[in-house]
């Protein structure tokens, strides 16, 4: 790979002050904005999680009322999914995709600015529901009617904020697709693209195909409540279960929207630190595509207990189990990449390995609950809570942390503090397991999810879980400290940063110029 020496006359620095950030169309600035926004929302959502866990430390109600508790579970989920994880991945895409494919910027820089700046408004609107009459939405992030229709003044705010978040994601995704299709450097064929770019390419299609369906579903809720339609009201010939079908038609692909970019990140990091090319590049691409396809035909496994014909239950069971195949291929490929490599274990690698192991644990429980007859026992218990937190916290969130440690030296030009980073990994890993592993046990023993108080036989594991939660929550303050410290200074990073790193982004200086690849490199 060869970067042409860029014409220095075209390089101009960013504007100064606040206006730089408001008016910016630069993919690096916007990427940073997304990442900071995501970090703030991660901390807000994390505080909510700690309120939940504090209440669940002991049986009986100690700190909050049941209605507020339900608001916390609802808001925690919405904020973490739409406010923390999705913007984090979009931020990484903004920073890295142009640099990985040798593009000067995103294809639609002005739309890029809008898609970010919608987010703070949507996020504020969502958080503001906490302060209106009747309290924040408390019907679960799944917003099932008829319960969600009992929401007070927060209801239209919730719907509008989901609409805004949807707009932002759709615009961001179109931008990513357009960038990948049109701005690849000469010679960068599709099958030469780094895997992070590939997984985001597929994720972006999932987003533009499913976010509008969610928007439609919540619009129907809105008209049901205020304009006397009866999409989900049995009295008018509607069906509340239909909402669940439409919601999960969005919701299941959404699950993969949250995990495919993580697969991409891990597929970048493991080869770097194993000093060995990714095993089975093309099968990784095909596996990602087949997971994306399967995600559209498995949605009803979230709702096996609503009462479906046996044939439908069998279909959704088998289709769901089938997802284990391409997911397995990915895990096997990562292990084979590590196999007979020459590994070192810097922080990004630790997080990536942690991801593979703990995501796989979440995958196993996923396989268990794919089986309809046993899902009747698991459904809506803490076993489910344990499952999706395993795939989302030591899964998706660990991948974001891995990515931050991996690319932070490139973004800032400074190395982060390696021993602090490793310490952050180890305490996060230990506490996250103390937090979520016991939830498997209480779930199997019969504790339903979304309850503020529980029967005393569940106490021990809930206490352990709460201790893990506070440990994990506090560990993330260290993460914030490490990031701020690295941004402000530190040992200078080389352009290559990592010995085994390969790809166009490592041919740029650390930190990269404000405008990079104004002349596209030739990829051989």
């Amino acid at each position, binding site marked *: 790979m060869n970067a042409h020496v860029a014409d220095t006359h075209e390089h101009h620095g960013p504007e100064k002050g606040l206006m730089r950030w408001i008016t910016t169309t630069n993919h690096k600035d916007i990427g940073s904005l997304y990442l900071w926004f995501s970090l703030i929302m991660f901390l807000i959502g994390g505080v909510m999680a700690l309120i939940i866990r504090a209440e669940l430390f002991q049986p009986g109600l100690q700190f909050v009322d049941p209605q507020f508790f339900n608001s916390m579970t609802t808001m925690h989920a919405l904020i973490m999914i739409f406010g923390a994880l999705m913007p984090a991945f979009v931020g990484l895409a903004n920073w890295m995709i142009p640099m990985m494919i040798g593009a000067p910027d995103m*294809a*639609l820089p002005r739309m890029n600015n809008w898609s970010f700046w919608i987010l703070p408004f949507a996020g504020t609107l969502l958080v503001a529901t906490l302060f209106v009459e009747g309290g924040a939405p408390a019907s679960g992030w799944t917003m099932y009617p008829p319960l969600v229709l009992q929401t007070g003044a927060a209801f239209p705010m919730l719907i509008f904020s989901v609409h805004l978040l949807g707009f932002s994601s*759709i615009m961001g995704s*179109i931008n990513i*697709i*357009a960038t990948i*299709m*049109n701005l690849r450097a000469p010679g960068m064929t599709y099958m030469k693209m780094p895997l992070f770019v590939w997984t985001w390419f597929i994720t972006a*299609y999932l987003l*533009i*195909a*499913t*976010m*509008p*369906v*969610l*928007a*439609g*579903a919540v619009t*129907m809720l809105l008209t049901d409540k205020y304009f006397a339609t009866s*999409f989900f009201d*049995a*009295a008018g*010939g509607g*069906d509340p*279960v*239909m909402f669940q*079908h*439409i919601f999960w*038609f969005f919701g299941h692909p959404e699950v993969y929207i949250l995990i495919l970019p993580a697969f991409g990140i891990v597929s970048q990091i493991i080869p770097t630190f194993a000093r060995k090319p990714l095993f089975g590049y093309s099968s990784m691409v095909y596996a990602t595509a087949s997971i994306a396809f399967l995600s559209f035909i498995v949605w009803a496994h979230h709702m096996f207990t609503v*009462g*479906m*014909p*046996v*044939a*439908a239950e069998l279909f959704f069971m088998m289709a769901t189990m089938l997802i284990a195949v391409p997911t397995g291929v990915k895990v096997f490929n990562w292990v084979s990449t590590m196999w007979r490599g020459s590994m070192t274990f810097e922080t990004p690698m630790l997080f990536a390995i942690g991801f593979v192991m703990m995501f796989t644990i979440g995958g196993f429980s996923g396989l268990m609950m794919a089986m309809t007859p046993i899902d009747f026992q698991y459904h809506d218990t803490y076993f489910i809570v344990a499952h999706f937190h395993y795939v989302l916290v030591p899964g998706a969130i660990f991948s974001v942390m891995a990515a931050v440690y991996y690319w932070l030296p490139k973004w800032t030009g400074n190395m982060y503090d390696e021993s602090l980073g490793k310490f952050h990994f180890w305490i996060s890993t230990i506490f996250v397991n103390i937090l979520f592993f016991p939830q498997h046990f209480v779930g199997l023993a019969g504790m339903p999810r979304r309850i503020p108080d529980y029967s005393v036989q569940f106490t021990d594991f809930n206490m352990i879980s709460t201790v893990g939660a506070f440990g994990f929550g506090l560990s993330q303050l260290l993460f914030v400290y490490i990031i701020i410290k690295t941004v402000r200074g530190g040992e200078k990073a080389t352009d290559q940063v990592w010995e085994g790193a390969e790809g166009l982004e490592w041919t740029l200086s650390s930190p990269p110029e404000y405008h990079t690849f104004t002349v596209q490199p030739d990829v051989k």
Partner: protein
Amino acid sequence: MKTQRNLLKLFMIPVLMFGFGYLMVPIYDVFCDLTGINGKTGSITVAEASQQKKVEERLIKVEFVSSVNELGPWEFKPDQFSMMVHPGQAYHATYTAKNLLDKDAISQSVPSVAPSKAAEHFNKTECFCFTEQAFKANEERTMPLTFIIDPDVPDDVDTVTLSYTLFTKSIKS
């Protein structure tokens, strides 16, 4: 130019998918009619019903239950708990509803059938469902229904439960 056309196509995807979300409503209804997924019953005309052949050797128990949604001010009960019926023959049953208020009110009843695999084979030729029923203050009324079970109802169905839920549509003040 090509880029712009591609972009236009990309923008069309979310627009179409938004429409698809709404399209799922009729699709779901058709799907439900075909599979009985949400317990919605089949319906045929009286003429069609008279064409069906009575199956003497099979007896199916039909149970009737009722509920009043959101504990509205109604008394609503089936007049018989169960009947033994032959597939292919039409039967009559009645429910009684009473408005407990001193005001006029309008109700609407929604049927549902369990098990769902029997739903599509449970046909009603006369029914008070899905139409609004106006009640005078304290009025009590018998509401009739006529039904016929398809001769091709699955062999492992020996009990069918018909449930009516009565919703309050409006109360005159």
